[in-house]
C-alpha cells in the first residue's frame, strides 16, 4: 500500500514539507504535509498514527486526522509541551520528518453495515475524524451515524466547519455538540459529554460506539455506555502513551504485555478489560 517502504529503516523519518497550516482552536492547529515532489510518503489508515519530527527538537506520535490520497497527510496538533509549542511556531514551507504509519487503526471493515456512534472530547475528535470521514467517503457501507462531541468552550471545538455545516447535511447523520459551561452567543447544549450521551441514549442494537478524549472523559463515557446496555465488544477506544520508537522496541508505551504503539492504539473495551488498569 505505501509506495515508499518506511520499513527498511523504521526509525529514520522521511522529510515532508508543510504546505498549509490552519488554526482549529486557540491551541490546536492542523498541519498539512506532503513530499516536496508531491504525494505522501506513506498511506495511513483511519486511526493509525505517525511520528512527526521537528528535526531540531524531537519527535512525537500523532494520530493522522486525515489523509487525502496522494495529496497530503493532516495532523491536528494541540499545544501541550516543548515539541508542540515549537510546532505551533513553524510556518508554511517548513520541513518536518515523518515516519509511520504506526498502530492497528480502527476496524473499519468489521464495522461495515453497522450504525456508528462517535463520542469525542476536545482534541480527541482528531483521531475519530479519520474514521468519521472514512465512513462518509464510503457512506453506503455504514448505517446511521451519530456524532457526540464536546469541548470546554465554543472556541475549543475543533473542525467547526465540518461539525456545524458539512456533517449534519450528510444523509442519516446526527451531530450533537456540547460545551462545558454556558457562554454568550451559544444556544446549543451545555454539559459534559458522558451525560449528554446518556441523554441522547442511542439504541445499542446493531451499533458500534467509538470514543476518544481526555482519559477521564473516556472512563466516564465507558461507564455510561455500560449503563446504557452496550456490550464490551461494541465499544472501541483509542489510547495514548508517551512514545519514542513507535514500533514496539523502546519499551515505554506498554500496558501489560501490549505495546500501545504497535498493538494499539485502538482497543475494544473487551480487550482493555484484559489489561492492567494502568491507562
Amino acid at each position, binding site marked *: 500500500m505505501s509506495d515508499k517502504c518506511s520499513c527498511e529503516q523504521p526509525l529514520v523519518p522521511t522529510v515532508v514539507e508543510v504546505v498549509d497550516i490552519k488554526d482549529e482552536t486557540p491551541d490546536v492547529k492542523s498541519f498539512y504535509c506532503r513530499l516536496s515532489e508531491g504525494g505522501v510518503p506513506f498511506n495511513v489508515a483511519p486511526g493509525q498514527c505517525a511520528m512527526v519530527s521537528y*528535526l531540531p527538537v*524531537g519527535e512525537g506520535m500523532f494520530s493522522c486526522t486525515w489523509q487525502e490520497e496522494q495529496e497530503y497527510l493532516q495532523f491536528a496538533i494541540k499545544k501541550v509541551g516543548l515539541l508542540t509549542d515549537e510546532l505551533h511556531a513553524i510556518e508554511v514551507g517548513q520541513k518536518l520528518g515523518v515516519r509511520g504509519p504506526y498502530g492497528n487503526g480502527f476496524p473499519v471493515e468489521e464495522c461495515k453495515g453497522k450504525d456508528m456512534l462517535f463520542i469525542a472530547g476536545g482534541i480527541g475528535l482528531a483521531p475519530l475524524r479519520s474514521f468519521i470521514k472514512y465512513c462518509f467517503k464510503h457512506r453506503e457501507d455504514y448505517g446511521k451515524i451519530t456524532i457526540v462531541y464536546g469541548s470546554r468552550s465554543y472556541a475549543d471545538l475543533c473542525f467547526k466547519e465540518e461539525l456545524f455545516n458539512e456533517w449534519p447535511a450528510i444523509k442519516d447523520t446526527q451531530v450533537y455538540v456540547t460545551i462545558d459551561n454556558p457562554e454568550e452567543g451559544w444556544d446549543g447544549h451545555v454539559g459534559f459529554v458522558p451525560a449528554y450521551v446518556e441523554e441522547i441514549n442511542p439504541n445499542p442494537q446493531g451499533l458500534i460506539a467509538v470514543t476518544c478524549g481526555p482519559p477521564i472523559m473516556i472512563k466516564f463515557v465507558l461507564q455510561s455506555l455500560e449503563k446504557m446496555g452496550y456490550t464490551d465488544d461494541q465499544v472501541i477506544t483509542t489510547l495514548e502513551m508517551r512514545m519514542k*520508537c513507535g514500533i514496539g522496541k523502546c519499551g515505554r508505551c506498554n500496558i501489560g504485555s501490549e505495546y500501545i504503539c504497535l498493538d494499539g492504539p485502538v482497543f475494544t473495551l473487551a480487550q482493555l478489560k484484559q489489561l492492567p488498569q494502568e491507562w
Partner: protein
Amino acid sequence: MKILSKDKLESVLDKLSESAEVFVPLSRANSSGFYSWKNRNPEKERLMLDALNVYLSPKNVGFPQNEKMYSIIQSGPNAEIKETFEDSSPRIIFGLRACDARAIRCMDDVFLTRGYEDSFYKARRDNTVLIGNACYEPGPNCFCQGMGVDPVEPEVDIIIRDTGAQGYIWEAKTPKGEELTEGISSLLQEKELKAPELKAFPTQVDYSGVAEKLKGMFEHPIWEGLSSACQNCGICTYVCPSCHCFDIQVKTWGEEGYRFRCWDSCMYTEYTTEAGGGNPRSTTKERFRNRFLHKLEFFTERYGYPLCTGCGRCIVACPTGINIVNIINEVKEASVDV
C-alpha cells in the same frame, strides 16, 4: 573433537582480531566488562574467561549505550536527513556466558521480530559472531537454570568448554561458527577431551507458574513492600543484559545536528511522562512493578520466555539490596485472593 589449548588462546584472539573487533571479558580499573581485545592494555587488564560474569554485560556490543542514528540539517525549508549510521563492521563476542547469550536472544526477538526490524540493531547483529563459554560451576548469584537457560549450552555460534589445563573443547554450532572455525583451524588441535560435570546451583529458583500467577497480581499489596527500598536509580536496568529500553534524543549545533538513541530506564519518572505532564506510572511502586512484571510476566506472554536470564548482576549492583530471586520467591508464596 577440536581443542583450543590454553597456550594458543592469545594467538586465536589475535588472529580473530585481524578481521573483526573481538570483545572479551577484561578487567578494567576496578571493574570488568566486555572490551576490545586489540585495544586492551596488557599491562593492567586481565582476560577474565575464568570469571563467571564480569560486571558489565556485552549488551553494549550489539546495542550501544549511545548510538548516533542519523545526521540532519535542522532548520527551516532546508531541513533534511543527511546520512544514517548503521554499523555493519564485523564483531565477535568471545567468552560470553549462557545467561548473556540468552539476553542476546531476547534482544533479537525485540529488535528483529514483530513486524519491524530495527535497522541499526540488525546491521550489527548480522555481522556479529557469538562464542560462548559453557559454565560448570555456578556462582552464588547465578540462577539461569531456574529461568530456563542451560548453562552448558549457551545459544551461540561456537561453544568453548573449559576442561582445565588441557584446554577448551571448541564446538561450532552454526554455519557462522563453522566458517569462523575454518579461518583459525591451524591453531586448533584434534583430540578427545571430556567436558566437566555441571555443579549444583547455590541459588535455586523455580520460575514455573510465575508468569501465570503474576497475571492476577497487578493490584496485589505485595508491590508496596517489595518496592519500598527502591531508589529508582536505574542501576538494575543498566547492568541488565536484557533490558532493552531506549530513548531517542537530538543534538544540534548551528545548522547541523544528529539524532541518537541511548539506553533509558523504566525506573525513571521521565520515561513515561507525557508531553502534557500526565504519567501513568508516577510512583516508585508503579515503576518497580512494571519492571519486574515486564521481566517475569509481560515478556513471557509476548515471546514465550522471561526477560530475566538469571545473570545475577542486578542483585550485586542494587544499592538497597533488592533481589529478583526474593521477588520470585515472594510471588510464589503470596496468597492471591486478597
